[in-house]
C-alpha cells in the first residue's frame, strides 16, 4: 500500500543511489540496450536464464533466489525488485517504475559535477523499440543521446533502420563516434566504421573500441544492410588493441554488443582489454565479473540502470576499478528538467496515438526469459486468432516493457513490444519436419556450448504447439514431444501446418504489421488474462 511505498522510498535517497567516487579518477558511465525507452517503465527481469557449457550457474545465468544469494541481496529489497523477477508485482507497487532518460540525465550530471571528464558510453540498441523511434527513424533517440552528452556508441538494432538511414545519422546527426571494429564492407573487406576513439580524460589516455553485434546479418534482415559483414573477428580485435596500446592508450575499454557469454570468452581470448562494457543480452549484474586481468560490466537494459566505473590508473596502466550499478528508481531520482522537456518534446507528436487504451490486463504482461513470457503468449494468441493459424511463432526478442495487472494496455505498450522495421505478420504453411528444423536451429543459436556460436536472443516463442527441450543436447536432438495443442496430437513431420509469425528476416515477407494484429486481438478480448505457459517443458 501507499504507506509501505512511502516508507520504502524514504529509505532510498538519490545521493545514496548515485554514490560517491571510488579511488580511481578516470570515470566511465555506461548505458546500453535502452531500446528507445525514454520514460519510466515496468520491466521484469527473467525467471528463466539458462547457461550452458562453462556458463552453467554463473552470472548472468542466475535468477531469483540464486541471484540474491550470489550477490547478497535481501529478499523484498529495492535491489531484489530491480534485479530479479520474484514478487515483481508487489515489489513494483512498493518501489515504482524504473528508468527514464530525464532521471538518467540527473545521474549523469551528478557524476559529471564531480568528475567533469567522465566518459558516457552507449552500448547500442538505442534507436529502436518505441513508437516515436519507429516513426522518426531513430531521430528522437539520436537527439536525446546527444543532449545527454554521449561520447561514443556501438550498435545492433540501429542497422535495422536500413543502411541509408544509418549513414545519414552517422554522417549528419549523431555528433559523436559510431564505433565498430568488426563491421566490414562485403566487397573489399575493409573496415566500414572507425574501430576506436582515443580520449584524453583525467590525465589518462583511454581507448574506447567499439564492437557491434556480431550476428547482425543472421539474426536481422541482411537485405537492410547488404554491403556489411560483421562477425566476432577476435584477431581483428586483438590487432586493434595492439594498435591503441602502441598509440599510447593506458586504459583500453571495449564497448561491446557481443552479449555477455561471448564477451566472457573474448576476455579470455584477447589480451590487453581492461574493461568490457557488455551489452545485447540485457543482463544487469551488480558486480564486475573478472576474467584474467579484464573486468566485465553488465548494465542491464531499458534505462533501468546506469553503470559508473571509476578506474584507478598509475604508471600508465589500470591498477584497479570500482563499479556501481546505479538503479534508476524513478520515484527517488529527480527528473532533470532540461531532459524532461526534451523527452516530452519528442513524445508530443505521438502522445494521442500512444495513449489510446486498447484493453486491460488482469495479470502481468512481461517478455524477458529464455522461453515464452506472457507478452509472447499474447502475441502468439493474436497471431493464431487474427491470422487463423494452427501454430504461431514469435521471435525471442528481449526488449519490451511489462504491463502491470489491472493496468490499461495502451498502443504505446503494444509498440514497446513490437516496434521494429520488419513487422509483417506472415501466414504460411510448414511441414512438421520444417518446424522442427527451425526450432532446432534457433535453439542451437541460443544454447550452443561454445559462446561464439550463441547469438544471444531468447528461444523463438511458440503458440498452439508444445514441446520438450533438453538444452544441453546437440543440434537436432534438443527438441522432442512436439504436440499440436488444439488436438493433443504429436506433430507429424510430413503434414503441413498453417503457421503465422512475424519478424522474418526474408526480404519480401508479406502481411499486416504485427502491432495491428495484436491491437485487433486486444480490442476483441477487452481484458487479457495471462496464465502460466506450461506447454514448453525444459529437461536436463
Amino acid at each position, binding site marked *: 500500500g501507499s504507506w509501505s511505498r512511502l516508507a520504502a522510498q524514504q529509505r532510498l535517497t538519490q545521493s545514496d543511489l548515485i554514490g560517491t567516487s571510488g579511488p580511481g579518477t578516470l570515470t566511465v558511465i555506461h548505458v546500453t540496450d535502452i531500446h528507445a525507452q525514454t520514460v519510466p517503465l515496468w520491466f521484469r527481469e527473467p525467471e528463466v536464464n539458462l547457461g550452458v557449457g562453462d556458463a552453467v550457474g554463473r552470472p548472468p545465468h542466475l535468477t531469483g533466489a540464486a541471484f540474491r544469494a550470489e550477490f547478497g541481496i535481501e529478499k523484498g529489497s529495492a535491489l531484489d525488485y530491480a534485479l530479479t523477477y520474484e514478487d515483481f508485482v508487489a515489489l513494483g507497487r512498493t518501489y515504482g517504475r524504473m528508468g527514464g532518460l530525464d532521471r538518467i540525465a540527473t545521474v549523469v550530471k551528478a557524476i559529471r559535477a564531480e568528475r567533469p571528464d567522465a566518459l558516457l558510453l552507449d552500448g547500442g540498441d538505442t534507436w529502436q523499440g518505441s513508437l516515436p523511434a519507429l516513426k522518426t527513424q531513430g531521430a528522437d533517440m539520436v537527439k536525446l543521446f546527444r543532449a545527454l552528452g554521449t561520447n561514443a556508441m556501438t550498435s545492433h538494432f540501429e542497422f535495422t533502420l536500413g543502411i541509408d538511414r544509418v549513414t545519414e545519422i552517422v554522417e549528419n546527426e549523431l555528433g559523436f563516434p559510431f564505433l565498430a571494429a568488426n563491421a566490414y564492407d562485403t566487397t573489399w573487406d575493409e573496415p566500414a566504421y572507425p574501430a576506436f576513439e582515443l580520449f584524453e580524460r583525467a590525465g589518462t589516455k583511454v581507448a574506447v573500441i567499439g564492437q557491434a553485434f556480431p550476428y547482425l546479418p*543472421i539474426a536481422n534482415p541482411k537485405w537492410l544492410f547488404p554491403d556489411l559483414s560483421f562477425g*566476432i573477428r577476435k584477431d581483428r580485435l586483438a590487432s586493434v588493441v595492439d594498435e591503441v596500446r602502441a598509440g599510447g592508450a593506458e586504459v583500453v575499454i571495449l564497448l561491446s554488443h557481443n552479449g555477455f557469454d561471448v564477451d566472457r570468452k573474448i576476455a579470455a581470448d584477447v589480451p590487453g582489454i581492461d574493461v568490457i562494457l557488455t551489452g545485447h543480452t540485457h543482463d544487469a549484474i551488480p558486480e564486475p565479473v573478472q576474467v584474467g586481468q579484464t573486468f566485465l560490466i553488465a548494465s542491464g537494459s531499458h534505462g533501468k540502470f546506469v553503470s559508473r566505473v571509476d578506474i584507478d590508473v598509475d604508471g600508465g596502466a589500470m591498477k584497479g576499478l570500482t563499479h556501481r550499478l546505479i538503479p534508476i528508481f524513478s520515484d527517488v531520482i529527480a527528473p532533470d528538467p532540461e531532459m524532461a522537456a526534451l523527452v516530452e518534446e519528442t513524445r508530443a507528436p505521438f502522445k494521442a496515438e500512444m495513449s489510446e487504451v486498447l484493453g486491460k490486463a488482469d495479470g502481468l504482461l512481461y517478455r524477458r526469459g529464455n522461453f515464452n513470457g506472457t507478452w509472447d503468449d499474447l502475441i502468439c494468441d493474436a497471431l493464431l486468432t487474427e491470422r487463423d493459424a494452427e501454430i504461431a511463432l514469435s*521471435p525471442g526478442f528481449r526488449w519490451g516493457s511489462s504491463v502491470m495487472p489491472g493496468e490499461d494496455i495502451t498502443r504505446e505498450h503494444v509498440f514497446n513490444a513490437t516496434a521494429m522495421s520488419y513487422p509483417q505478420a506472415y501466414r504460411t504453411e510448414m511441414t512438421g519436419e520444417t518446424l522442427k528444423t527451425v526450432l532446432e536451429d534457433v535453439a542451437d543459436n541460443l544454447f550452443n556450448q561454445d559462446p561464439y556460436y550463441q547469438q*544471444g536472443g531468447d528461444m523463438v516463442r511458440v503458440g498452439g504447439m508444445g514441446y520438450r527441450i533438453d538444452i544441453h543436447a546437440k543440434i537436432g536432438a534438443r527438441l522432442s514431444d512436439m504436440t499440436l495443442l488444439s488436438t493433443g496430437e504429436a506433430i507429424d513431420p510430413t503434414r503441413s501446418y498453417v503457421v503465422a*509469425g512475424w519478424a522474418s528476416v526474408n526480404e519480401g515477407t508479406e502481411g499486416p504489421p504485427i502491432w495491428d494484429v495484436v491491437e485487433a486481438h486486444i480490442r476483441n478480448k477487452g481484458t487479457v488474462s495471462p496464465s502460466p505457459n506450461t506447454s514448453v517443458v525444459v529437461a536436463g
Partner: protein
Amino acid sequence: ALGATAAALVLPQAARAAIDEAVAAFTGGAEIGSEGITLTAPEIAENGNTVPIEVDAPGAVSIIVLAGGNPSPGVVTFNFGPLAAEQRASTRIRLATTQDVHAIAKLADGRFVQTSSEVKVTIGGCGG
C-alpha cells in the same frame, strides 16, 4: 528466415569418401601433419553463398581447400609463385550446409599439413 531448408548434420559416407579421395589426390597418400597451417573462417556463416575464408601456411607451395558437405568437395587450390610475399590467401566460398572446411598445404620440403574449421550455416532470425 523461418521456412528455409534443413541442414544435414552428419556427413554421409559418400561425402566422407569424396573428401578422402580428394585429399589422397593432392597428397599422393603421404602422411599429413597438423602444425604450420591456419584456416580462418567465421564461426557462423552470414550467408552460406559467400563465406569468407583465409588460409595461411608459411613456406607452402600450394594449399587446397575442401568442403565435404558440398555436392562435390573441391573448392579452390592456391599455387604460390616466386613473388608471393606470403603463402597466405583469402577468398569467398559456397557452403551448402554446416560442415568442416579443410585446408591442406604442400610445403616446400614435400611434407603436407592440414587443418579444418567448422562453419555453421544457420537459418537465422529471431535475435534480441
